[in-house]
């Protein structure tokens, strides 16, 4: 009796330990061979699987659009209907833990076959050897479906590491009523753009003061939290620095234009057009400020914000309690980023998409081809049409345009035209930047640029001090000859 009790206790203790181990030991990268369901046979492991062999493709996907994750079951069914021998297994993730989840899996050597990430993240996985080059398995039918520019963003060197889902412009967003009250010809700005000087004067007119206190700012841009690198990154494109490296592969943020840009951005706060607390304003806060009439213009602006503002307007009309507290009705106007230092306008374009990964084992040719099929399925046709319509994003595949033809989308035509104008001078993709250089630039951005920018916005350092710090770090990383000195 006593032994039974001891045995039971031991079993419970062991079960607890084993369950803990199981939780940590998941491996969802099958490389075409990890499970019978995935490969159908062990032949897949040796690379000699039949073309019709069963296979499972795993995908780690965040909520790309408001309704995206609701459609996962249907997407899995549709994929299986199109490829009866293949199973698409989708693992949902939130935006907050997407990168961390993926990075942990990648570094453990067991990433998913496909993950939805920004194309600017490809370089670091290529450098690790964990991104999977699909060049030899992407058929001409697949690649021919995409617009050329966004497809280029999915390349690094000569490799193609996935397929793009959309190409979005990071712009600014304005409140139509406030813009018109300030006498700003927003239609002209949408068409012809504006210089820094014009922008500076315009946002000054948007400021409303009650005594000493400011009840409305001219411009508020999110600079805290996940948005910390956006402000400078977006503005730098239109300051003659479309990428961190120029075409001679020299680090660009040591150019005198960079110093001028920093000076200009500080000036907007000193003018009182932007809040002095800007360094603590995160994405949620500035959107709240925009909807509650505390700013005339906000950034960054994405196409989907027009939809969000429209939905909030409907809630206000319906006296729905879930409308943003104290919000006012806003007609959202897409506005371009101003140009700095006499540079030409270059739009900050974001291409996100389905990037392919490999595990510790080399995937079989068959499994690689199946990954390409799944990435293409997710980024084109009906799936892309539904998602991009939900996001108000422009379609970048012929198949999605065809599928979207019958789907209604109520988008302001002026905004639509403004986005097209910005896309016409989108920053070109830079697959030529070696992964190693790209990784060093990311480290300078995280360790020097973002912290110094926070200090500059908080008025703790001068633009020259920040410029000097960036230059010092750049010389340490790339050498005197590796940076722009103009």
């Amino acid at each position: 009796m006593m032994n039974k009790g001891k045995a039971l206790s031991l079993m419970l203790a062991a079960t607890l330990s084993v369950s803990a181990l199981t939780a940590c030991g998941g491996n969802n990268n099958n490389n075409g061979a990890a499970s019978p369901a995935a490969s159908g046979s062990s032949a897949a492991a040796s690379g000699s699987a039949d073309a019709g062999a069963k296979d499972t493709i795993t995908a780690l996907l965040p909520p790309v659009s408001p309704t995206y994750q609701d459609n996962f079951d249907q997407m899995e069914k549709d994929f299986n209907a199109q490829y009866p021998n293949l199973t698409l297994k989708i693992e949902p993730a939130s935006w907050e833990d997407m990168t961390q989840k993926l990075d942990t899996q990648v570094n453990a050597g067991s990433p998913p076959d496909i993950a939805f990430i920004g194309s600017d993240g490809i370089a670091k996985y290529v450098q690790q050897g964990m991104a999977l080059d699909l060049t030899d398995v992407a058929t001409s039918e697949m690649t021919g479906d995409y617009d050329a520019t966004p497809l280029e963003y999915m390349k690094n060197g000569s490799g193609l590491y996935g397929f793009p889902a959309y190409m979005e412009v990071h712009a600014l967003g304005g409140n139509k009523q406030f813009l018109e009250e300030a006498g700003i010809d927003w239609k002209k700005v949408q068409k012809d753009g504006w210089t820094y000087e014009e922008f500076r004067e315009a946002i000054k007119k948007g400021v409303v003061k009650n005594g000493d206190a400011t009840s409305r700012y001219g411009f508020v841009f999110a600079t805290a939290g996940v948005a910390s690198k956006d402000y400078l990154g977006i503005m730098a494109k239109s300051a003659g620095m479309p990428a961190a490296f120029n075409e001679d592969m020299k680090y660009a943020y040591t150019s005198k234009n960079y110093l001028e840009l920093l000076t200009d951005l500080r000036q907007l706060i000193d003018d009182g057009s932007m809040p002095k607390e800007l360094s603590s304003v995160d994405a949620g806060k500035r959107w709240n400020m925009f909807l509650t009439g505390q700013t005339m213009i906000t950034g960054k602006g994405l196409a989907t914000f027009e939809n969000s503002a429209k939905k909030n307007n409907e809630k206000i009309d319906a006296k729905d309690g879930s409308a943003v507290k104290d919000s006012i009705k806003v007609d959202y106007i897409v506005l371009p980023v101003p140009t700095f230092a006499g540079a030409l306008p270059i739009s900050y374009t974001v291409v996100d998409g389905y990037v392919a990964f490999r595990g510790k084992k080399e995937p079989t040719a068959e499994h690689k081809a199946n990954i390409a099929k799944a990435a293409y399925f997710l980024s084109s046709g009906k799936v892309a049409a539904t998602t991009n319509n939900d996001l108000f994003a422009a379609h970048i595949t012929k198949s999605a345009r065809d599928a979207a033809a019958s789907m209604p989308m109520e988008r302001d035509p002026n905004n639509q035209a403004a986005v097209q104008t910005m896309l016409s001078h989108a920053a070109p993709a830079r697959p030529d930047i070696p992964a190693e250089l790209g990784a060093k630039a990311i480290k300078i951005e995280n360790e020097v640029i973002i912290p110094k920018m926070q200090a500059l916005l908080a008025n703790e350092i001068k633009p020259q001090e920040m410029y000097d710090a960036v230059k010092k770090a750049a010389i340490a990383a790339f050498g005197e000859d590796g940076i722009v000195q103009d």
Partner: protein
Amino acid sequence: MAQPAQSAKKRKIKGDGVWGYAFIAVALIVYAMFTAYPVLSAFIISFQEYKPLGSTYIGFDNYTATLKDDLFWKSIKNTLVYTVLTVPVALLLSFLVAIMILPLRKKLQAVFKAVYYLPVVASGVALSLVWLWIFDPMPGGIFNQFIGWFGAHNQNWLGASATAMFSLVIMAWLSSHGASIIIYLAALLGIDDSYYEAADLDGASFLQKLWHIVIPSLKPTTLFLLVTAVIGSFQVFQNAYLMTGGGPDHATTMVGLLIFDNAFKYFEFGKAAAQSLILALIIALVSLFQFKFLGKDVDY
């Protein structure tokens, strides 16, 4: 007759011993897998340039790079400042709360213990959201409204170097003392009543009893809490990660956050492992110092 009895006893001991080893084995396996193995792996990785598809040995490069890195020393300094500002105040607050709870009836004691322990079990992310709301930099923020009553202008609490560290310290002062309070209460309840009775007979005041009975009796508990709080404070990560991200200008970059960034932002696992081991060494030295100089007259 004596021989069979002795062998039966031996067998019994042998049987119990097997069970003992079996139970120890479960804990030992878990310890080996989740503590010893990761520490050993970290030690090995600290001499490597880590890559999932095959790492390369680079000797002491990660250690020398760390020791030459200004940011590493800045993060150590920030962590030290945070520890010095938070740990003594946190211990004092826990002690005072425990003293105030002690005279209450048992049920009321349980209520207060639960209330003070609640933040320990609450999600750190949820608590951070509340604190972000409290530290809202705009005039509507709770702290800004509070200082506004005294005529002060609103502060950019988390966005300015002058106030960012102080804001994290306030957070530490005002949250998560639950475990320390419960340990202090247990220790207070363990003090023999005869000491208080003798002091009463001598006409000792509350403060005299506190100084001559309570504080000396709680010395082992205080030392334990001090050592564990300093260790916890050196490893602080969550508050800086969620509230400031280490900014502005690295004013709140703690060494735990730096290790995380090196590992998960830059994939420099070798450097992160080297920094972790240097941190472990610093913590061990600080703990040794505490035991040597503060634990001299502590009886366990």
